[in-house]
């Protein structure tokens, strides 16, 4: 059938050509997981105009290539983010904003915010700053584009290979049956 997956396109050269098109047309999911999302509207609209890079917000995870974790993630959000990530179709990438997804940032001692996102989802790129300025966001996007072109942004493959490990970590946080302390 025509609609079968791209798996047969194993040819490396062909994949490289496709990567060129993928990087030129990154569609991000319009999902504000945290406070960094407040800098996304300026990035999307007239002043910084991210559409110049072929990027645009998409309504549903099915249509998106890029999941933005805009800042901290509470446990409740983590569950939704994982659902969302698994609904997205490969190839897909994750960008983490700010310091919160790296080590908890200012919320390092919060009972509700996860400290390190990389334990639960494969992060392809982190953007520094609290919160990242639009320039920094666009800089991060261009870096991701370069990584995609070089074939280095392979978080989704990592997720598939280490699925058990990620699931174990996720379950530890989301489906705990005993008190922590």
């Amino acid at each position, binding site marked *: 059938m025509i609609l079968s997956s791209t798996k047969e396109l194993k040819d490396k050269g062909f994949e490289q050509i496709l990567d060129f098109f993928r990087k030129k047309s990154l569609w991000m999911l319009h999902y504000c997981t945290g406070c960094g999302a407040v800098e996304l509207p300026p990035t999307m609209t007239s002043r910084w105009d991210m559409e110049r890079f072929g990027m645009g917000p998409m309504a549903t995870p099915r249509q998106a290539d890029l999941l933005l974790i805009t800042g901290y993630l509470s446990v409740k959000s983590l569950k939704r983010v994982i659902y969302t990530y698994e609904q997205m179709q490969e190839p897909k990438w994750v960008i983490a904003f700010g310091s919160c997804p790296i080590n908890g940032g200012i919320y390092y001692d919060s009972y509700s915010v996860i400290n390190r996102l990389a334990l639960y989802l494969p992060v392809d790129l982190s953007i520094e700053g609290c919160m990242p300025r639009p320039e920094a966001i666009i800089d991060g996007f261009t870096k991701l584009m370069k990584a995609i072109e070089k074939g280095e942004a392979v978080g989704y493959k990592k997720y598939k290979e280490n699925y058990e490990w990620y699931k174990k970590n996720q379950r530890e946080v989301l489906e*705990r049956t005993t008190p922590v*302390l």
Partner: protein
Amino acid sequence: MEQKELIEHIEKNFKYKKEIKVIDGKQFTITVEKDKVLNLLSFLKLIDFKQLALITAVDWIDEKKFEIVYILFSYSHIQQILVKTFVDRDNPQVETVKNLWDVASMYERDVHEFFGIDFIGNDDLRPLILHNWKDLPPLRKDFDSLKYSNKMFGKFKKDEEI
């Protein structure tokens, strides 16, 4: 009414034991026994304290008490009243005020989740904000947030990562 008249009015017409303390020109507190809260609140609602701005609690762990605070506001008197009551920390129970204000049910759900205080008569005390919470209610003073965070989310170890 001005604050002074208002306090006099309350002193005169609300007979039960109470303690009134002025914070500043626009707000004052009234402390009552916990079984008189409902009486006081319905009395205040009658004298035009129509807005219930917040229900919250304070954990006085040294005195083994929870302080429950009802914050009311009146648009005609331009006065804020903080109605306070104390409940026992081991058996924290107080009557619901959701029959007076619809909004109270959500505040009570909130306070129940974060302090473990039961509101008798409010049957909708489902978890609201936290996900799958198994520990002590988090805003109690004996709950250590940092310890919880370290144990639950793990300190960042580079070598563990893939």
